[in-house]
C-alpha cells in the first residue's frame, strides 16, 4: 500500500456559515417536523390505519356513545373481541352485553380504565366478563398502546389504576399520543410503501362491539403457535405482572363498591397449543395463581378450564371464526351460570 497523491477524489469542502445559520437550519427543520407530525397525527386519529389502534378508538367510542346501559361488559383482548358474541350472551344469560375488548398490548389496565369510565358515565353493569390470552397477563404496560385511548389528556392519571406521574411515563404517553412518527412508525412505513392499501382497508365492527372473522387460516394458526410458544419463558412459573395486578385490584374494588360480579375466563386456544406439554405446565401454574388471587374476593370469580378449538375454526392460535365464537360464548355462558349458582 504505497502512498498515492489525491487527485480528483472527493474531499470535505466546508461552507461559509455562521452559528446563526446553524440555529436557523435547526429551527426550520424542527418546524417542518412539527407541521408534518401534526398533519399525520390528525390524519391517523381520524383514519386509523393500524387495526389495533382502530379497535381502541372504536371500542372507546362505543363506550362513550352508548345510549342504553349494558347489563354485561366484555373486556379483554382481541381473542374475545372476535371470540365473544354478545348475541349469544343475550340468548344464554338474558343479558344485554357490550363487547369492549381491544388487543393484548393494552393488558388489563385498559379493562380497568374502561370499566371505571363506563361506571362514571352509565353506572355499574350487572356483570363483567374478562378474557385475555395467557401471555397478556405477564406483560408490563405497553405505553405506546395505552397512549391511544381517546380520552382527554391525563386520563392515565385520572382513571384507575393510575399509571403515575413520573416523567418517564408522561413522556411515553405524550410521545405515543402526539408523535406518530415514534409510536406508529411501522404503520406510516407501510403507508409510504403501499399508499393504495389505505383504500382497501377492511376493518369492521358490529354495533355490539364484536369484530367477527369469517375465514379460517389453518396455516397461520400453526405458524402463530410457533411464534407465541417461546413467550413462555419458565413453564413452572406464572406471575401476573404488577401492572395487571394493579388493574385487577382496581376492577375488584369497583366490583365490591358497586356490587357487580366479575368473571375471568381463559381465552379460546388452538388445541395443538393447549396440548403442548410446555403450555400445559404453564397453564397449571397460571390456574393456581388465579385461583389463589380470587379465593378471598367476593365479586371476582375465576372460571377454570381451557376451551380449545381446531385450526379450521381459527384465524390464528387464539382468534376464532364466527361459528366457533358462538360455540365459545355458549360454553362460557354455561360456565358463568354454574359459577353464579355455586357462589
Amino acid at each position, binding site marked *: 500500500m504505497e502512498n498515492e497523491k489525491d487527485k480528483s477524489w472527493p474531499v470535505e*469542502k466546508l461552507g461559509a456559515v455562521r452559528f446563526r445559520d446553524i440555529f*436557523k*437550519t435547526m429551527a426550520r427543520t424542527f418546524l417542518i417536523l412539527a407541521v408534518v407530525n401534526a398533519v399525520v397525527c390528525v390524519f391517523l386519529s381520524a383514519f386509523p390505519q393500524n387495526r389495533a389502534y382502530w379497535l381502541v378508538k372504536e371500542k372507546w367510542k362505543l363506550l362513550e356513545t352508548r345510549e342504553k346501559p349494558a347489563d354485561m361488559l366484555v373486556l379483554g383482548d382481541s381473542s374475545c373481541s372476535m371470540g365473544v358474541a354478545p348475541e349469544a350472551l343475550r340468548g344464554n344469560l338474558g343479558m344485554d352485553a357490550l363487547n369492549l375488548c381491544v388487543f393484548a398490548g393494552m393488558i388489563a389496565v385498559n379493562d380497568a380504565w374502561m370499566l371505571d369510565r363506563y361506571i362514571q358515565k352509565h353506572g355499574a353493569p350487572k356483570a363483567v366478563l374478562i378474557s385475555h390470552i395467557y401471555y397478556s397477563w405477564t406483560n408490563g404496560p405497553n405505553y405506546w398502546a395505552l397512549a391511544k385511548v381517546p380520552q382527554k389528556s391525563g386520563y392515565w392519571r385520572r382513571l384507575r389504576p393510575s399509571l403515575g406521574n413520573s416523567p418517564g411515563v408522561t413522556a411515553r404517553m405524550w410521545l405515543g399520543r402526539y408523535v406518530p412518527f415514534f409510536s406508529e412508525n411501522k404503520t406510516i412505513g407501510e403507508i409510504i410503501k403501499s399508499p393504495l392499501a389505505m383504500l382497501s382497508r377492511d376493518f369492521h365492527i358490529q354495533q355490539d362491539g364484536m369484530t367477527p372473522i369469517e375465514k379460517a387460516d389453518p396455516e397461520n394458526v400453526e405458524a402463530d403457535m410457533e411464534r407465541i410458544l417461546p413467550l413462555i419463558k419458565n413453564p413452572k412459573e406464572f406471575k401476573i405482572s404488577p401492572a395487571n395486578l394493579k388493574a385487577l385490584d382496581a376492577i375488584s374494588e369497583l366490583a365490591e363498591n358497586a356490587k357487580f360480579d366479575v368473571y375471568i375466563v381463559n381465552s379460546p386456544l388452538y388445541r395443538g397449543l393447549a396440548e403442548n406439554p410446555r403450555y400445559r405446565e404453564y397453564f397449571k401454574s397460571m390456574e393456581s395463581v388465579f385461583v389463589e388471587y380470587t379465593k378471598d374476593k367476593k365479586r371476582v370469580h375465576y372460571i377454570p378450564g381451557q376451551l380449545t378449538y381446531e385450526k379450521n375454526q381459527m384465524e390464528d392460535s387464539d382468534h376464532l371464526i364466527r361459528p366457533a365464537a358462538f360455540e365459545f360464548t355458549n360454553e362460557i355462558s354455561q360456565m358463568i351460570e354454574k359459577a353464579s349458582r355455586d357462589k
Partner: protein
Amino acid sequence: MLFNSLDFFVFFIIVYSAYLALGTRYREQNFLLLVGSYVFYGWWDWRFVPLLAGVTALNHYLAGRIYSEESPAIKKRCITISVAVSFAILGFFKYFNFFIESAEQALNSVGFHADVATLNILLPVGISFYTFHILSYTIDVYRGALKPTERFEDFALFAAFFPLLLAGPIERASNILPQITAPRKIRPDKADAGVFLILWGLFKKMAVADNMAVVANKIFDNNGQYHGLDIVIGILAFTAQIYCDFSGYSDMARGLARLMGFELMLNFRLPYFARNPREFWQRWHISLSTWLRDYLYIPLGGNRDGELARYRNLVITMLLCGLWHGAAWHFVAWGAYHAALQVAHNLFISARKTSSSEAWEDSLSRVAMFIFVAIGWTLFRAPTVGQAASMLMSAGISVSSETLALAKHLAFYAAPLVIVQAWQHLSGDLLAPMKLKPAKKSLLYAFMILWIFIFGVRESVEFIYFQF
C-alpha cells in the same frame, strides 16, 4: 451505550452542556471529557475499565522513559515492552481460543490426539481500536516523531476519548494530542458539518445498515435454502450493511468531535467508487490502512527492497489486517483475498504502464472493483470459508418466490444511500448535501430525521465493528 441510543443522547447532552459552559477552559474540559469517556466505556462493562486504565498508564510511563533515557538499548527495551504487552493483552482476549483451537485441529489432522482447554474469555469492547491507538503514541515517541505529553490526563484522554474509543477512527497521537493540549475553538463551519455528519451517520446506521442486516442475516444464516439472485441480493445487502454501519459510526464520531472543536481524520472516502484495490484501501477504513502502512508495511521494508519483497510485505500486512478484524480463518482468507487483488493489480498495471483512462474505462473499473469487493465481503460475513465458497458458487440469475420481495427491500432501503453517494461523487464533495440552500437543506434534514423514525430499526442493534 451505542451512539443511536437514548442513553447516549442523554449522556451527550449532559457532557456537551457542561463542556460548552466551561468556555475556553480547556484543561477543565479535558478533565470533563476524560471522566465522561470512562463513564461511557464503563457503561458497556465496568470490569474492563481497569484494563483500559492499566494499558494507558503503562504506555504513558514507557513513552516517558523512551523520551528521557539516552541509552538506545533502554529505549528499545521500553518500546519492545510496550508493543509486546499491548499485543499480548490483545492477543489473549481476542485470539487465545482461536490459536488454541487451530493448533488442536492441526495436531489432530496429523494424528496427534489433542484435547486442549479453551477459556471462556469475554472480549473487551473496542480493544483492537484503542490498542492501535495507544501504540501509535509510543511508537511515534520512539521514532522521535512526537514528544510525550507532560500531563498524564492529556494522554489518558487521547486513549479514551469517547467518540472514537469503541470503533475508531484509529487516531494518531500527533493529530489529537495537539488538540487536547491547547484551547479549542468550535468553528461554525465545522460545527455545521458536524451536525450533518451526525445526522447522515445516524441515517446510514439506522435507516440503511440495520435494514440491510435483515436481508443479509436471512441469506447468510440460511444460505442452504437460497441460490441464484437471492445469494447476490444477500451479498449486496451485506456490502451495504457493513459500509453504512461502519462509516455511519465514523461519521457520528467525527461529527460529535467537531461539535467539541476536535478534528478527527476522515475514515471513509466513498470506497465503493474505487477503481482498483490500491485505491480501495485508500478510501476504506483509512485510519486502519494508514496505521498498518506506517507501523507494519513500511517497517517490514515497504517497497524498498524490490518487487518480491514488496509483495511479501503486502501479503503479510493484509493477512494481519484480516486477522485484526476477527479471530477466525475466514477473516484471514478475506485479508489474503485482498492481498491477492492488490498483487494482481500491481502486476497488471505494471504490465499496462498507462496513466490515463477514458471515462468509460473509469466507470467499468469502478463497477469491476465493486464486484471484487462484494465477493470479498462474502468471505468476511460467512462464518467459514467453505460457506463463502458455496454461496459464491451458487450465486447466479435464477430466481425464487422470495427474490422479488428481497430485491424490493434492498432497492428501497439502499436508494437514499445510492442517491447521496452519487451526489457526493459527482460533486467531489463529501459534504455536498449540506450545501443546499437553507430551505432545501432543512427539508432534507427533516426528511432524513423522519426516515430514521419511520424506517430505522428501533432497538439498538450493535455496530458490527464493535466485535473487533
